[in-house]
C-alpha cells in the first residue's frame, strides 16, 4: 500500500481528505511514473496538475519528497524508496515554496 500526500489544492480538486492510499501491482518495479499513472487513473481530474500531459515532465513548481529527501529530479523510472513501497513513509507531492 502506497501512501500519497497531496497539496491542499489537489486534495480539494480530487475531493479527498488526508492521504491517498493506493495498492499498486509490485510484480514490476514501482516507480514515480507507475505511481503517478496509478494516481491519475484513479483521480483523472489531477491530470496535468502534477506533470505535463504531453511530455510527462513534472511541473516546475511541484516538488516530490520522500523519506525527507527531495526526489523531484530523480529519473521517473527509478523505483520508489523502500519505506514508501512498504507504506512506512508517504510520498509527498508538494507545491513549491515560491511566491506563496
Amino acid at each position, binding site marked *: 500500500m502506497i501512501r500519497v500526500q497531496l497539496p*491542499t*489544492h489537489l486534495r480539494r480538486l480530487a475531493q479527498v481528505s488526508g492521504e491517498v492510499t493506493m495498492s499498486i501491482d509490485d510484480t514490476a518495479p514501482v516507480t514515480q511514473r507507475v505511481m503517478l499513472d496509478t494516481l491519475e487513473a484513479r483521480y483523472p481530474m489531477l491530470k496535468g496538475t502534477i506533470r505535463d500531459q504531453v511530455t510527462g515532465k513534472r*511541473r516546475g*513548481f511541484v516538488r516530490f519528497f520522500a523519506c525527507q529527501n527531495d526526489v523531484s529530479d530523480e529519473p521517473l523510472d527509478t523505483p520508489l524508496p523502500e519505506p514508501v513501497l512498504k507504506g512506512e513513509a508517504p510520498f509527498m507531492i508538494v507545491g513549491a515554496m515560491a511566491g506563496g
Partner: protein
Amino acid sequence: MSLIKVLVGTRKGAFIITSDASRKSWEIADPLFPGWEVYHLVASPVMPGRLYASQSTQWFGQLIQRSDNGGISWQAMNNKFVYEGDIGTHRWHWGDCSPHVWQFERIWHLQPSPIDPEVIYAGAADAALFCSVDGGQQWTELDAIRKHESASHWEPGAGGLCLHTIVLPPDNPNQIFVGISAAGFFKSDDGGTTWRLSNKGLRSFELPDPYAEVGHCVHHVAMHPSRPQVLYLQKHWDVMRSDDAGDSWNEITGNLPNGFGFPIQVHAHEPDTVYIVPISGESEHFPPGGKLLVYRSRTGGGEWEPLGRGLPQRDCYVNIFREAMAVDSLEPCGVYFGTTGGQVYASGDEGDNWSVIARDLPAVLSVEVQVLP
C-alpha cells in the same frame, strides 16, 4: 421575479453575487476554487445552468471546470490544450530577445456558443484558439490562427501574448472574430479554417509603421447581437468602431479625456450605447486624477459623457481589466464592473448611478452577468 447572478473571476477564486431584479440588495456566496486565478467564469447563453470556469495557478497549471446546476457542484473537464503541428515562434522581449517557441500558459477567455450548448471556444496564452464540441470534454486547436503568416511577428503585451477576445456573431455561425495582444484583430468566415487580419484603420504610434497590418494591441472588442456588423474596439490608446464587421476601423475616441482603457461593452438594448472606463495609460494603470469614471456614448462613439455618481471621485488608483465589465438584459439595462482593488460596482439605471456590491474581493479579473427567470 428574476434572479441576477454576477459571475466574478478573481486572482484568488471565483464569486457569485446574487440579487433579485430590484438590484438593490446583493449577497456574495462563499468563494469557488479558492486560491486559484479564475481568468473567466461564464454561463452558456443557451443553457443558463451551465457555467464554465477557467482556473489556473503557476503551481498546478490550467483547469477547466463545468457546472450544470448553476454553480452548486462542479466537474473537472479536460484540460489538455495541445498546440497542433508545427509549433513556431513569436517575438519575445526578454533574455536575449530571440524568437520564443509557442508555449501554453493558460486559458484567458471562454466563449460558449450562442447557438449550441455543447460548443465552446477557448482563447489561450500563448495566443491560440481551441474549440470543444462536447461541452469541454475534449479540446482541439483551431490552429490556422496560430499559423497565420503574420504570427512570427506577434509580440507579447503586458499580459503576455494572449488571445483574449472571441466574438461569435449570432447571425453567422461560420464567423469568428478574435483579438490578440499584441497582434490585432482577426476574422474567419469559415469557422476558423482560414483567417485574415482586420486592422485597417488601426493606428499605433509604438510601431515603426503606425498603420502596420499587424502588431496592434487590441484590448477588447464588443458587439451588439442585433447589429453584428458593428464592432467597438478598445485598444492601447484609442477607441475604435467598425461598421463592416472589422474590415475597416474609424476612431471614436472623440471627447474622451484619454483613449486608453481595457474593457468595452454595449448596452443590452441600445446598439449605439457604449461603455468604457478610461485609465491614465499603459504605465499608470489607474483612473486619471484618482477619479473613477465610466464613460458612456449614446451615439455609437465620438461623444462621451462621464458617469461617476456613486463611484469614488478621489484617491482611487485601481485598474479595470478587459474582461471585468458586463451588462444585464433587464429594463433599464444594468452595468457592472470589477476592479483590481476587489470592488464590484453595479448600476441598475444604465450607468447613471452606481453602488458597490462587493468591496473586498481579491483583484477582479472577469465579470459576467446572468438574468434568470
